[in-house]
């Protein structure tokens, strides 16, 4: 590891701090910017006196600056406020729900990687230099149609086919493996297809490189050419879109959880918005946004470290 790479990583981490600060500020401002009084709709028919007491309880009677410092201070102590509804700490709500979301996003990511990558590499190998035109057209058609299908439609369709028509799989809830299958597929299908398209193009690009011709001139076995010479180059190229794919999966999980009524962060977020339960909305938004930002930074740092040029200088 050279000094240059350490400095680059340092810069990334500094950038991460800035973005996290911006995320925290935006999430804090969410409640401030809500049209009208955040408590009113929740507390219809209460007296002014009761309203004032609630305001004091949630700290809404203080100046914006004081509220902000209090918010950030609490944040560092792991306190995300309390639900307007149940008075339950938001942290507890998130802890109850985050595992279901992680399970869904994780399963979807596994599908994206372990289906998208091989699919793309096989498609690239079969269609390189204009071979198998029909296969290429088929691949492009299928991936573009499935890749453009919104996840909530895929979810609806999967629910209809597997749960309603054939009653093979459950359509709601979470906890069991069966309950994970349909939501994970619904989240994964579109990103899998977009990843497959990108990776196929990258693979074709790598296959046309001179160093692959060098490997072929050495008459190495096919699996060695693909696994040793092509794959590492494709992987780093694909990793550059890894952050975007991850965001697509997280966004997909938020929506699909609502289709299948899985108690996760996505349903917490949407239920929170629909019931004006802003502390929960803030908590869920914060956790999701921070996850995305941290993963993106991790991807960037991985790319920095993997770059062979990082070793020089």
């Amino acid at each position, binding site marked *: 590891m050279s000094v240059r790479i350490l400095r680059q990583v340092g810069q990334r981490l500094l*950038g991460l701090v800035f*973005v996290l600060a*911006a995320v925290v500020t*935006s999430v804090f401002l*969410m409640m401030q*910017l809500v*049209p009208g009084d955040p408590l009113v709709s929740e507390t219809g028919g209460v007296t002014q006196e009761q309203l004032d007491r609630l305001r004091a309880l949630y700290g809404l009677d203080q100046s914006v600056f004081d509220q902000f410092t209090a918010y950030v201070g609490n944040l560092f102590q792991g306190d995300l406020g309390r639900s307007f509804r149940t008075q339950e700490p938001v942290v507890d709500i998130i802890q109850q729900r985050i595992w279901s979301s992680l399970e869904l996003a994780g399963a979807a990511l596994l599908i994206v990687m372990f289906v998208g990558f091989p699919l793309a590499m096989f498609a690239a190998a079969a*269609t*390189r*230099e*204009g071979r198998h*035109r029909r296969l*290429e*057209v088929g691949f492009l058609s299928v991936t*573009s*149609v499935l890749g*453009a299908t*919104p996840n*909530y*439609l895929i979810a*609806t*369709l999967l*629910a*209809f086919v597997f749960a*309603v028509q054939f009653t093979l799989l459950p*359509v709601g809830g979470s906890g069991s493996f069966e309950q994970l299958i349909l939501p994970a597929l619904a989240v994964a299908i579109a990103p899998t297809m977009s990843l497959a398209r990108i990776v196929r193009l990258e693979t074709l690009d790598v296959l*046309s*490189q*001179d*160093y692959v*011709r*060098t490997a072929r*001139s*050495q*008459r*190495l076995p096919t699996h060695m050419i693909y696994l*040793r010479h092509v794959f*590492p*180059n494709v992987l*780093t190229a694909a990793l550059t879109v890894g*952050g*975007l794919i991850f965001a697509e999966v*997280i*966004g997909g999980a*938020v*929506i699909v959880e609502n*289709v299948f009524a899985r108690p996760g962060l996505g349903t917490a*977020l949407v239920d929170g*918005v*629909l019931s004006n339960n*802003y502390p929960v909305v803030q908590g869920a*938004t914060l956790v*999701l*946004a921070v996850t*995305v*930002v941290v993963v*993106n930074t991790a991807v960037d740092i991985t790319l920095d470290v993997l770059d062979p*040029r990082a*070793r*020089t200088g």
Partner: protein
Amino acid sequence: MTASALRLSRTGMSAPVLRAFRRAPSGMIGAGVVAAILVVAVLGPIVFGDEAQERDLTNASQGVSREHLLGTDALGRDILARLIVATRLSIGLGLASAALAMVAGILIGVSAALFGGRARVIVLRTIDTMISFPSILVAVFFSVILGRGVTGALIGVAASTAFHIARITSTLAISASRRDYVDAARVLGVRGRPLVVRYVLRNIGEPLTVAASVVVGSSIVTISALSFLGLGPQAPQYDWGTMLTEGVKAIYRTPAAALGPAGAIAISAFAFAFVGEAVARAMNPRLWTAPSGRAARAVATAPAATLVEQAAAAGRARPDERVEVGGKDGPPALEVTDLVISFPSAQGATEVIKGVTFSVGEGEIVGIVGESGSGKTMTALAVAQLVPYPGRVSGSVRLHGRELTDLSRKELDSLLGNDLAVVFQDPMASLNPRLTIGTQLGQAVRVHKGFSRRRARDLAVRSLAEVSIPAGETQLGRYPNEFSGGMRQRAMIAMGVMKEPSLLIADEPTTALDVTIQAQIMDVLHDINARHRTSMILISHDLALVKQNCHRVLVMYAGRIVEDLEADAIRTQAVHPYTKALVGTVPEIGQSRTGPLPDIPGEIPDPADPPPGCPFHPRCPLAVDRCSVERPPLLHRGGGHRAACHVANEGVE
């Protein structure tokens, strides 16, 4: 004419662009569906408005029937009528949000180009960060602070999309503003806003049109997602998304209530996506002819295209080209007979190599010279069995008497893997950037000779020493980018030497290197030739280099050998006017020998319309009538000297 096609013509698209758009069937179908959707959006509420509101509680939550093609909802309203009425809000919101996103995105993106220094960096970073968030999260954020409902959803989706547009715009605008004509305008006194508007926007208009046509579809989808989650239109307003929510709740009893809105969203998403794709394709002239851009490019860059020539249908005059084998001494290492390589083309098949016969003796260094496109590299690739798809190879290639075309894949791997090494032109591109030098050097002997890791390492160190790279042990763990150009080429040669091949093909091994390094690389090759009696083929466009370093020289022109003679004799005994022309302008020893082949008056044959007879006759000072009619055969002149020229071969049998 559809809205998108109109938009195209208004932004000044040329006739061929429109033609290309019309030619794509998916684009035309998409445009037709989009047009139909727009008609429904305009007329739907007028025609079906009342029916959509008609409640019939006795017929609530019914499935598909003749009266209600998609069934009824919980209040007994006809779902199909509601679906048609909802088209206006769904599509309208999508279009409005897309328009808003375009305007905001272009403003943000162009501002990045207008700013310099730190401000630009901050804007660009912000854009990058914003697009890294899931768009649904950004949309939810905005719909919370703006209140649930139509406005919140519209602005929320626009905000999440705008940064994608901003990213595209900033990239385009910054690169456009760096172009010469913008500088020129700046010098002429065009400043600030007018400059951006007039020069930059005009030049980024086309890519942004493509982006816009994609954004419309994605906006409709994301708006519907928000509505589906309950964050869009609030009752009594409804769009496809809210209808889908109700439908999914009732999916067990009346699936049509869910599938109807799902279908509507899907159909419009695909229709707009197809139009977007067709617009993108129409805007990119490279994609007009072939269905697949990449494949088209692959064909275009294949050597065939540079030498397109109608296949001579009426029996190619191929004279008896028997060669006394054994160039230098002993039996030949390589015999190539009647080698023909063709690529499919508009005319059926185009031959880039039109019958090449030669041999390389054991320990002999044979040079192949010719202008680019003469077929020298393709010949070498055929020997190495590396002719790119979809090239077809016919004729015979024998390595140590073994006919390569007769061998199975496995036998080929073993024979070529052990006996043949190829050193390619560009050492930077020809070494894998992600693998260490050690791995790349060792892999062939580990596979083909079954060497252990340790033994391969030891051999690699020795091979590196042989090409004058010291301290091989430490070099093995390094990556190609840590090597200089000369070192990389030596490493390439060391890689070839590892397996002690009997034939080494070096394709322009020194072209990318400076003169001093060139000489060193040639020394290395000579050294190997002397030490291991390795036969070599040295391909170059530099006659002087070939003359100095080879035993024998093959001169190629337009896919054929036109002369074959001893390197030492090339000054004195060359007879072909092409060779003579090359020799005539070779600088004397002591002068720079880095230059490419000299300028010969005239041009290489027009690929589309090759001259009849001798391909060189239009440029030939000695040409006689016969040359433009009859192609001269490659005839033996004795002593291994061959030439293909009517004039020079006068009297030769």
